[in-house]
């Protein structure tokens, strides 16, 4: 039953508009691949490790292929395997050592190449499926708590220190641990390798670091009796690869937005759209909940004025996500509590927005971001703002409550800050546990009126975007006041036109797994 009197047919209309917007990009996506998609495919097929310069082997192979990667990196590598009888790892290493030139291979029958490719892809997928089963088994034994799930970050830069802090947070009730990524990693066109102990404002996302944290959280979960979800960041120049690594290490959530890289990291739009699609197919297969980054809009734009851009972007993220096989319950669509706390009735406006998102996406575990922009060195006031955020979270039944830190304006969280954040959420959410069942809103209330206003504005924006085209809208600065032309941005060189022979063995394997056989060819 709607608290806000939201008309679901209006919502469906907006959803349809968003689908038109995303679908009009399908031909572009279909025509391209990217270096990181190819590297992700190689990783899925089993390539891992680094050369003696610490360059990851997937990068070595794709760099080596140059334009030929437009045929699909898997094609060349599988051909080489058939040719040399070596394993995929050995092929990559031979390339790295300069012992094998993939440009000079004698012809092998295409159907053998494809068969081998599909076999390796199926093995990769099996590894991921095993993780899905393990997650299910663990959760049935160690039940997760009810929503909102309490999500806290660790960000020391040192994975071993992160482990200590994460475990401590879990002992005090955290449901989700996110390891924040070091500054600038999103712009690296490779994924660093091995355990790391140095990072700025975060820790490198490496597969080894994922593994270390996963093991630590599994261990502490046995003691606390609740499965702990692990999160890392995918969006950036290596989005699909990081998702593959996460899928292999049983990460449970990934920051994986269809537009974040474009808008906030000036990554080329085509690159990002292509990358997000493939990476989300992997998320879907791995049962990974994505987190989208609409909160970022409000760090530059005003949260009252730009509320509808958040919702519009959520519709687009949803549409892309569903197309890539993500079920609604894997869509952690983002929004945030960022209204100026000095504004009269600011809490009511926040509540309105939170309830609106909840009603528009009833089946998705919304990711609700805490106040950040208006946090200051006044940790006492900050603690209150976080309390009101927590109240809004329980009131609107958010799925994923990213807990605010009272020292947000100063540093990544101290151990004690995380504890205080958990205590804040526990107190407020328990004290107002059933508030949603208690209360209705007057039809003429600010809460209801504001929600309708935002929804209407969202509809108008989506229609304009449909009219102009998404790439044009982005180029014109309609999102987050940032203009990104389709032919600009970082990583453009890594966008490759697919050749007629292009082969990605994971595509069909994933499509079958996800039941996307019918539509997949329109997208990829």
């Amino acid at each position, binding site marked *: 039953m709607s608290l806000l009197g939201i008309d679901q047919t209006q919502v469906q209309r907006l959803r349809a508009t968003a689908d038109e917007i995303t679908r009009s990009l399908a031909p572009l996506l279909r025509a391209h691949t990217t270096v990181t998609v190819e590297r992700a495919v190689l990783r899925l097929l089993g390539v891992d490790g680094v050369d003696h310069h610490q360059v990851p082997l997937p990068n070595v192979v794709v760099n080596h292929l140059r334009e030929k990667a437009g045929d699909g990196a898997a094609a060349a590598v599988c051909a080489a395997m058939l040719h040399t009888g070596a394993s995929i790892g050995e092929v990559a290493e031979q390339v790295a050592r300069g012992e094998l030139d993939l440009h000079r291979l004698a012809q092998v029958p295409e159907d053998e190449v494809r068969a081998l490719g599909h076999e390796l892809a199926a093995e990769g997928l099996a590894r991921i499926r095993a993780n899905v089963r393990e997650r299910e088994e663990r959760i049935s034994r160690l039940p997760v708590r009810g929503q909102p799930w309490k999500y806290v970050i660790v960000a020391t830069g040192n994975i071993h220190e992160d482990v200590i802090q994460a475990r401590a947070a879990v002992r005090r009730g955290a449901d989700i641990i996110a390891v924040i990524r070091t500054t600038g990693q999103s712009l690296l066109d490779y994924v660093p390798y091995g355990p790391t102990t140095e990072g700025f404002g975060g820790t490198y996302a490496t597969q080894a670091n994922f593994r270390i944290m996963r093991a630590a959280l599994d261990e502490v979960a046995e003691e606390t009796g609740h499965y702990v979800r692990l999160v890392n960041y995918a969006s950036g120049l290596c989005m699909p690869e990081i998702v593959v690594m996460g899928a292999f290490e049983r990460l449970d959530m990934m920051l994986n937005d269809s537009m974040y890289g474009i808008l906030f990291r000036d990554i080329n739009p085509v690159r990002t759209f292509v990358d997000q699609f493939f990476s989300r197919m992997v998320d879907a297969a791995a049962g990974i909940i994505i987190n989208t980054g609409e909160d970022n809009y409000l760090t530059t734009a005003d949260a009252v004025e730009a509320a509808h851009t958040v919702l519009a972007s959520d519709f687009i993220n949803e549409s892309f996500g569903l197309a890539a096989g993500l079920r609604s319950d894997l869509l952690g669509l983002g929004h945030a509590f960022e209204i100026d706390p000095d504004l009269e009735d600011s809490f009511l406006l926040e509540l309105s927005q939170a309830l609106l998102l909840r009603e528009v996406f009833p089946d998705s575990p919304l990711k609700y971001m805490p106040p950040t922009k208006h946090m200051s060195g006044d940790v006492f006031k900050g603690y209150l703002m976080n309390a009101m955020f927590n109240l809004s979270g329980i009131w609107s039944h958010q799925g994923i409550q990213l807990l605010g830190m009272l020292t947000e304006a100063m540093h990544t969280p101290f*151990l004690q800050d995380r504890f205080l954040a958990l205590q804040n959420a526990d107190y407020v959410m328990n004290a107002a546990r059933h508030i949603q069942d208690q209360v209705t809103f007057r039809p003429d209330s600010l809460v209801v009126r504001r929600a309708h206003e935002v929804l209407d504005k969202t509809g108008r924006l989506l229609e304009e975007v449909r009219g102009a085209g998404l790439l044009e809208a982005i180029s014109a600065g309609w999102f987050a006041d940032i203009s990104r032309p389709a032919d600009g941005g970082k990583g453009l060189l890594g966008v490759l036109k697919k050749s007629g022979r292009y082969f990605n063995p994971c595509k069909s394997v994933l499509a079958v797994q996800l039941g996307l056989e019918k539509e997949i060819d329109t997208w990829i």
Partner: protein
Amino acid sequence: MDLNLREIRPYGDTLSDGAMQMSFTLPLPTGPLAKEAALRFVRRLGLAEADVVHMAELGEGFTFFIVYGKTRLFIDATDITVTAVESDVWDRATCDEKIRELFGRKLRIVGACIGEDAHTVGIDAIMNMKGYAGHYGLERFSMIDAFNLGAQVEPETLLARALEKQADAVLVSQVVTQRDAHLQNLTRFVELAEAAGVRDRLVLIAGGPRLDHKLALELGYDAGFGRGTFAEHVASFIITHLARSRGSSGSKG
């Protein structure tokens, strides 16, 4: 974690980074001078790096500061000896049983909140039937006769009533600590007991939110209890203490 117990300092987000938070008010008008004064002040406290993260005007020439900083100072945790009440804690049934076994009679316990202090919730929590946070009070123990005299009892009165009731133990509660009122009242009671020559006949126990065992011993009590105490803690201590002193000085019962 490579913890060196000889060099313990605060942990912000790395071992021994010495990070901590402080807040205080200076009697200086808000502005750059006050901010600099705040920084100097926290440096005097031994914070090597410090940041005034917030400064607010309180009016009347005062400024409030929130500071985060890091210190290189540390303490040695290997030479700390803790003064804590040493006795097992038994549940009510066990306490009753032990009393029956060890003394063969009911124990008599008299308690009060002395001086001008009228905060009875604490002593009631320990003594009254109902108890506190689901833990019954001493009145509920079948082998204890508990007499709670309540609030604002003069030390003289408490001692007189304890002697009259032939108490085994006396419980003294003190909640108000402003201007050290609790220290004066607690000391006064011990002095009275000593002057009357009955100090050794009584187990003397002090309690209150700002009290701990160490302070109570210093003041001449046998034990002290702070926040979060339940009746069973007190009963267990009295039993242990009486049994021990009976053991050393022969049967009394």
